[in-house]
């Protein structure tokens, strides 16, 4: 069986500076896979390349059996790959409901869209309460919920979450992580990028540690969580 997402020797460069230096990993349907590592390790660059915002300088990306490398960004979501970007990037002057509708921009099944918007409100009740409010007025954690809800609106085969816990209060962070566990239980395939290694590894099936553009360590999430070098480098233990 081939994986849903197959990344082979992927390289991405900004001008002459290579940010991703030949990484390979795969995501099987139903799995949660996480990329962890410090700032500047190339995690966000990897996700932005997968969703077409950056062009790879080398290597191969295969998603659901199709090569992705040169597909323009606006055609990626139609293939079933949704991206909740770092920094949330909700549309601040549109309402919450409009943001969610934009997540379903390419869908034409009105009834289905309505049902999924309702599902997003069930998942995050605060969004439902404030549906007519401009998204820019939400708190950071609420914006994160909106960004995740919006990404789910395309009914993706693979959901990519970039730093969903960044800048959130501990309570909000926990809420977001619980939601990811819920989504996983519902069978959603997730590629999760996180700096919060503890949280990410404890819910991931598979984890990859990135350092300056390379994957330096891979393994099941629980193994990495107990790996001594990971604990030292990312979990702040000596």
């Amino acid at each position, binding site marked *: 069986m081939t994986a849903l997402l197959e990344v082979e020797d992927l390289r991405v460069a900004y001008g002459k500076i290579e940010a991703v230096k030949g990484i390979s990993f795969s995501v099987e349907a139903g799995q949660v896979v996480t990329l962890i590592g410090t700032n500047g390790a190339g995690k966000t660059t990897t996700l932005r390349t997968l969703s077409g915002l950056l062009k790879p300088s080398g290597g191969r990306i295969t998603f659901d059996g199709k090569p992705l490398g040169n597909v323009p960004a606006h055609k990626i979501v139609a293939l079933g790959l949704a991206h909740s*970007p770092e920094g949330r990037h909700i549309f601040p002057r*549109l309402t919450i409901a409009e943001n969610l509708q*934009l997540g379903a921009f390419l869908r034409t099944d009105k009834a289905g869209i309505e049902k999924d918007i309702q599902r997003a409100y069930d998942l995050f009740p605060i969004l439902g309460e404030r549906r007519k409010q401009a998204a820019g007025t939400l708190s950071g954690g609420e914006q994160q919920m909106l960004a995740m809800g919006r990404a789910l609106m*395309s009914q993706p085969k693979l959901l990519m979450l970039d730093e969903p816990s960044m800048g959130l209060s501990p309570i909000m962070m926990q809420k977001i992580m619980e939601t990811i566990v819920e989504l996983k239980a519902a069978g959603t395939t997730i590629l999760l990028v996180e700096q919060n290694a503890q949280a990410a590894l404890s819910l991931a099936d598979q984890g990859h540690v990135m350092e300056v553009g390379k994957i330096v360590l891979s393994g099941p999430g629980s193994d990495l969580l107990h790996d001594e070098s990971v604990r030292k480098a990312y979990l702040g233990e000596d």
Partner: protein
Amino acid sequence: MHELPQQLANGLALGALYGLIAIGYTMVYGIVQLINFAHGEIFMIGGFGALTTYIMLPSGTTLLVAIPLMIIGGAIASVAVATAAERFAYRPLRGAPRLAPLITAIGLSIVLQQLVWGFYPDAKKPRSFPEFQGESFKLLDNLYLQRADAFVLVLAPLCMLALGLFVAKSRSGRAMQATAQDPDTAKLMGINTDRIIVMAFAIGAAFAAVASVAYGLDKGQINFEMGFILGLKAFTAAVLGGIGNIYGAMVGGVVLGLAEALSIAYIEEIPGMQQLGGGAWANVWAFVLLIVVLLVRPQGLLGERVTDRA
């Protein structure tokens, strides 16, 4: 003050004209942060497209039939030139330093003027537009509305209303707002942002064509240079209203138009300011107003303060 209603009406009509042209600056700026200095020439080309259409109509066509066709012909010409400019002049420079597309726009403006001057038959002197003015409408004892003013005062709000509905309600309009707010994320939603940018240029050009027909009918003639000062004024209106905001463009246009009309009529009545009034100083007062507004509200009347995009 007996003539105040008349001055207000003149100012409103002028302002509506500025507002129609200002839409083009503000929409393009709102989406690609480019000041399309060639937009004045897009307006001018709309006028020549309309004139060409009129010349091709069989003689004796009534204005009731001719004018809608002229608007369509003008819009075809201006939209064609504007979208070609986007595709071949601006798109290759996307991602280049801001100064490059700006200089390109100024160059394009000169090129378009010279092309019309050089190649449009008899365009080296003003070309006359169909006779339209005739008798004015008498609304009050002291308020007459010229036919061309009535034309623009009816059409401009209709165009604005249609645009407002389109942007707020339609799927493409929603995509346009998303692209303006965050182009990369708009792509992640599946929005073809290149198409949205072309659409912004096209809508602005079509509005400029409507304005050019109104202008030609008002003055009775058009010329290859007319886009320069009107473009500058409309750009001023867009900035005054808050560039990037479509309602701001219209509000800025009206405020500017009223300021000009009132300054022409009343500044010279202020003791000691006799020599600073009249038509010759109207442009000066228009730009003084711009400076004052920008000192108090740098973002323009309806503009939003740009905050850091986190």
